[in-house]
């Protein structure tokens, strides 16, 4: 007898290997987070009495907010200064900003001892707390970014009316967004002002908020160049090289201001002697200055570099690495905590040294992967990269 075997057509998924990796990393982070919620932060991290803040704060909060700065820089350029030519770069930067801030919030939901109470910031306010300002700014700015990005979603859903409706009222939100960004980008520096006894004098200065704001502008510009370069490669689309070239011209100016302010401050505070004779701290300082400021300043001053796609990508990566090192220095590497071995009883198991544990890093990696995945999905399903002429942003700008 002949057997009849019929195979039902099954749903076949041919996943992109990158997506598989990202989803796996997200899954790992989710499991680790569950362990943290049941057994406590100590179960998955190396944080201790002497190191209450570690990798999560340096990477997710400080770096996440920093790389989100492209959103307010581009919003100010396109809407406030009406440099409409840069408008094709606006949407991806707003999305990066939104995702960067989401990364901050999700990481805080792991890092906070009581994530379910995060909204207490809105009912019990302590006006002297810098952290309160950052918390409220991030909450409201996330809302503003959602409003700024909503037209893209509505266009993707073909709800043009809603998109136009939001565009009509976008200006107050743009201005609010720039004010909020200025506030919390600088307040991130103010967060460390309360540690004059702990933060190394090469970094601790009353003008930390000013330095943070200036560097945030340079990070924003570099981030726009970086994400345009990468997404043009990955999604095989054209690169708006003439726009990026113009944008890159601003970077040396911003970095020059940054360097002048920073070294003037060190001179005035009489801290110049720390530059050469403080061992590891001197090395960190010079690495950060050379990689984050001096090298990109030189690179982006050269027309040849600004006009080549590889030059733009390299320059922006160098700047980002150096400036992210700055955020790590300020929030972690240059913070001298009291040495607990001399006075904390050994049974309290407090660590003198802080080395982030693998599960701790996996949380951040998982959240970052989610961000990349979300950007990829948006690039695929939403009109993220608009044509210069027929987008609703362009129409709205013309109609005004």
């Amino acid at each position, binding site marked *: 007898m002949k057997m009849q075997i019929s195979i039902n057509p099954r749903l076949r998924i041919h996943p992109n290997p990158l997506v598989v990796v990202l989803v796996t990393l997200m899954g790992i982070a989710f499991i680790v987070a569950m362990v*943290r*919620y049941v*057994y*406590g*932060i*100590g*179960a998955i991290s190396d944080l*201790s*009495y*002497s190191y*209450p*803040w570690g990798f999560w704060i340096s990477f997710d909060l400080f770096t996440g907010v920093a790389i989100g700065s492209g959103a307010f820089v581009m919003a*100010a350029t396109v*809407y*406030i*200064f*009406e440099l409409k030519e840069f408008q094709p770069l606006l949407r991806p930067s707003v999305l990066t900003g939104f995702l960067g801030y989401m990364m901050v919030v999700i990481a805080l939901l792991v*890092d*906070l*001892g*009581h*994530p*379910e*109470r*995060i909204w*207490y*910031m809105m009912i*019990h*306010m*302590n006006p*002297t*707390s*810098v*952290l*309160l300002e950052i*918390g409220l700014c991030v909450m409201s700015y996330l809302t503003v970014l959602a409003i700024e990005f909503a037209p893209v979603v509505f266009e993707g859903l073909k709800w043009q009316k809603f998109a136009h409706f939001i565009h009509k009222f976008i*200006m107050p939100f743009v*201005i*609010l967004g720039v*004010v909020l960004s*200025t*506030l919390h980008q600088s*307040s991130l520096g103010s*967060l460390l002002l*309360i*540690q*004059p*006894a702990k933060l190394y004098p090469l970094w601790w200065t*009353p003008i930390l*908020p000013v330095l943070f704001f200036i560097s945030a502008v340079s990070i924003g510009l570099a981030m726009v160049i970086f994400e345009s370069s990468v997404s043009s490669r990955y999604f095989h689309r054209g690169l708006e090289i003439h726009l990026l070239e113009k944008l890159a011209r601003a970077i040396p100016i911003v970095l020059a201001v940054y360097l002048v302010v920073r070294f003037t401050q060190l001179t005035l505070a009489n801290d110049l002697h720390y530059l050469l004779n403080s061992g590891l701290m001197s090395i960190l300082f010079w690495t950060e200055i050379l990689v984050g400021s001096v090298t990109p300043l030189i690179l982006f001053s050269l027309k040849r570099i600004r006009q080549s796609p590889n030059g733009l990508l390299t320059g922006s990566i160098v700047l980002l690495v150096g400036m992210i090192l700055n955020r790590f220095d300020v929030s972690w590497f240059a913070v001298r*905590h*009291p040495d*607990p071995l*001399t*006075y*904390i*009883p050994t*049974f*309290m*198991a407090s660590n003198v040294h802080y080395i982030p544990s693998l599960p701790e890093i996996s949380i951040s990696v998982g959240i970052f992967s989610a961000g990349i995945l979300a950007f990829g999905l948006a690039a695929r399903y939403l009109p993220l990269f608009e044509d210069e002429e027929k987008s609703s942003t362009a129409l709205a700008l013309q109609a005004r």
Partner: protein
Amino acid sequence: MTDIKNIQHKAFLFDATRCIDCRACMISCSVENNIPMNKTRIWVAGVGLKGEYPNLDRASMVFHCMHCEEPDCLSACPVGAYSKRPDGPVLYDSDKCIGCRYCMNACPFGVPHFDYDKGLIQGAFIDKCTMCPQRIDNGQEPACVATCPTDALMFGERADLLKEAHARIQAHPDRYVDHVYGESENGGTSYLILSHVPFNELGLPNLGPTPVKDVSEAVMGVTIPFALTWGAILTGVTVGVHAYNQKKEAAGEKLVDAESQAQETK
């Protein structure tokens, strides 16, 4: 001695030359405040033996909350979980705490401790010395002071204790470092310390007379005026740029019109 209940400005005085490192204060604190075995609100720093036989020396220091006159933890806490009682104690309210651990960063003495071993259900909170309000409000000394066998820890009116401390230094200038730690450090603390070795050897940070929170509070003070000014400037720029661009556009259109008219007349 005046009744402890009536002391206007309660404070501790610790004399490192009297401490014998018996750690009875740690035991009594944990018993009084029901602290689990693997935690403590009070701890004793041991510098270890110094010098060569027969001139050996040893110093130890009892650490707990300094109860600063201007607490940095109170300034830093985003949700106002800290409060300072007018008579001295700095208190913490776990019902408001969100567990951000910014107070641990802010405190220059590393006093607040966090429950790293507790999950969401048990609730992870900050723990720190409270100056035993349950005892001082009943006219008793805090547990650590009541237990101390050598009077290395004393409790009383801050001004009286300062007088006492300076008197001890004057009586034995060869024995003490000529300074009362906490008299001016960090804006003054309610925990005064006398020592025969330099204070940083006991593990105390070198702090100025202004509290570490001062700069950050000054910056926070200008935040709202700055935000309003900055918002106004940006609005002005937006309106200005838009008006300028429209004027330029109109001028350009006029030019185009004039040109086309000129062509028509030809």
